[in-house]
């Protein structure tokens, strides 16, 4: 028997009313996170990756958002849970770290005081005990001389140390799930490597599950066990990390992979950008949301809305694409060999596509 997922998101929709119309930020996504595993959610700005995670913590509640679907955490539905019970979970069983550690820490309070507050918000312990815990945690996340640094202010910390302090704060109450929203985007590359290594070590030692949200395919390749690719509020592809990079199925995933230069690739490789720009979430394209930017789109793709379905050969790999599986396989084979989308199309001969 396979273990129960720690978090299960089912058909989650999040909509925000605005002056210009309803923003469909998250549009029916389903995913799960197993205990002790890492899920990477990849997408560009406006793909809904952050909103879906904020909703998990109930942080979109106040903005007049319309939320439907279910977010099951250890059997409780977080969508309908009353605020005070959600509060007991937030920062306790589920913790979150944000992109910009400077704006997530209070500038006028000592780092230690903020950690102590986080401990005492959920546990009835003395200040001294909470402070001891804070010092322990700063040491755990690799801040040198934690007994002294605990009394410093955030501005006295470097960018990497602030993010370590944020992670310490998230770990205060031994969360079962850590949501990390672009945790390394504001950091330099050597510091990014330190933080990613730290997250991996903490996961090994503490056994927590991680959801890491990022636009960087390199980062998810480093740390994620499973990956979900989001586009315009939907998951368009999800699979194990190995499968996603070895045999990607969705044309958007192909586009992402072909538009980044790789450090270990041939130096003169041509980058193939995805044409056009991400769509508006108010007036979304009809049919497959990606069809206006998809080089392989066929006329009926503007009408039919693809569902996220498992691949015939691999039930853990899901894709929402209207192209036939065999055709996708041949297209990716051409692209992986260095063909441009036009060349791949000419070679494979998709019927009905523009020549």
């Amino acid at each position, binding site marked *: 028997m396979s273990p129960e997922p720690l978090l299960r998101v089912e058909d989650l929709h999040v909509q925000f009313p605005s002056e210009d119309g309803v923003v469909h930020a998250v549009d029916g996504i389903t995913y799960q996170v197993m205990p002790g595993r890492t899920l990477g959610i990849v997408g*560009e*700005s406006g793909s809904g990756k952050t909103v879906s995670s904020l909703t998990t913590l109930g942080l979109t509640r106040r903005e007049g958002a319309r939320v439907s679907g279910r977010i099951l955490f250890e059997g409780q539905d977080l969508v309908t849970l009353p605020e005070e019970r959600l509060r007991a979970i937030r920062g306790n069983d589920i913790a979150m770290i944000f992109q910009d550690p400077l704006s997530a820490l209070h500038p006028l309070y000592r780092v230690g005081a903020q950690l102590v507050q986080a401990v005492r918000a959920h546990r009835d312990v003395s200040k001294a005990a909470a402070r001891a815990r804070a010092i322990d945690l700063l040491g755990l996340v690799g801040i040198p001389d934690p007994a002294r640094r605990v009394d410093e202010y955030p501005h006295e910390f*470097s*960018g*990497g*140390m602030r993010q370590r302090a944020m992670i310490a704060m998230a770990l205060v109450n031994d969360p079962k799930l850590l949501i990390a929203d672009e945790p390394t985007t504001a950091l*330099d*590359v*050597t*510091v*990014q*490597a*330190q933080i*990613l*290594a730290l997250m991996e070590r903490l996961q090994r030692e503490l056994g927590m599950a991680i959801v890491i949200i990022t*636009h*960087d*395919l*390199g*980062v998810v*390749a*480093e740390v*994620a066990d499973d990956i979900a690719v989001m586009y315009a509020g939907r998951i368009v592809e999800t699979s194990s*990390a*190995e499968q996603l*990079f*070895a045999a990607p199925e969705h044309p958007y995933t192909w*586009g*992402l*992979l*072909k*538009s*980044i*230069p*790789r*450090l*270990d690739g041939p*130096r003169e*490789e*041509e*980058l*193939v*950008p*995805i044409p056009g*720009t*991400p769509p508006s979430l108010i007036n979304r394209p009809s049919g497959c949301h990606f069809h206006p930017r998809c080089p392989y789109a066929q006329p009926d793709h503007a009408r039919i809305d693809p569902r996220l379905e498992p691949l015939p050969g691999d039930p853990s790999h899901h894709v929402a694409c209207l192209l036939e599986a065999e055709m996708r396989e041949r297209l990716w084979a051409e692209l992986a060999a260095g063909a441009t989308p036009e060349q791949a199309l000419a070679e494979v001969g998709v019927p009905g596509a523009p020549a």
Partner: protein
Amino acid sequence: MSSILRLRALVKHFPITRGIIFQRTIGAVKAVDGIDLEIERGETLGLVGETGCGKSTTARLIMRLLDASAGEIVLAGRDITRLKGADLKAARREMQMVFQDPHSSLNPRKTIGSIIAEPFAIHKLLPDRDERKREVQRLMETVGLNPEHYNRYPHEFSGGQRQRIGVARAIALSPKLLIADEPVSALDVSIQAQVLNLLRDLQRRLGLTLVFIAHDLSVVRHMCDRVAVMYLGKIVELGPNEALYGFPRHPYTGALLAAVPVADPTLRGSERRPLGGDVPSPANPPSGCRFHTRCPKAQALCAEQDPPLEDKGSGTLAACHFPLSREEVTQMGVRSAR
């Protein structure tokens, strides 16, 4: 003499002062601390390094947006370090800059047409209105914008398109030198490639000399002929792309390259030890080699003597007493190593 730009012992120290009325200088942030660099006509030079290494300050010094504390900047054979007034204005015609943030570098109250025409207005070129408009529309087409959008405002464009507007403005006067400071780091992944391809295409077509500043080492490898790696205000390694990425000799270059995440989970198992510690303060840089406080190979000599930037026999110049060997590069997990 084919070098278009020569930097000699270039220094920029920002004073740290105390007191409100009688300000006393109590120290200096050594943002750029002695850079020698020559840039050849038509090449793309990458300037890489982490926050605070002085790469953007170097760009601003070249553009004369900041005044150098010492050293000289020679553009096309002419010392421009201390030019003023009309001479400076004339020199600035020869060099242009593309900025990181396409949202804050375009005036929201001006139309695209007048933004791109601004260089002509400043330098009193193309006084004829129709002629100016034709030239602006030609530029818009060159960078892949629809010339009919001449009268639109910046907010009507996406990030990638705005960056194209910035590029069109920068190439308006056919500058000899184009400096792009993190031109794609504010853009979405799928849009980055559009702007990178545009810059590469323009560079080839117009024979531009490009200084490309970025922190993303994969992007720099893709774009540049030569690369200079900076650390705390100094160049620590300089060389042709293939040599520098294939066999980095400075331990800092090696650590930077090893830290780059590669989009391939099958490589994950390989041992990588991230560089420890943080970048020291440029107000109080370490003695000797500035990297010695974080360097895994540091010895007593490194804290005493600042190593010169010299040929290490594998194609690059490196400022290191104990340069990396091939085995060490492989052990570090540098994925671009040959």
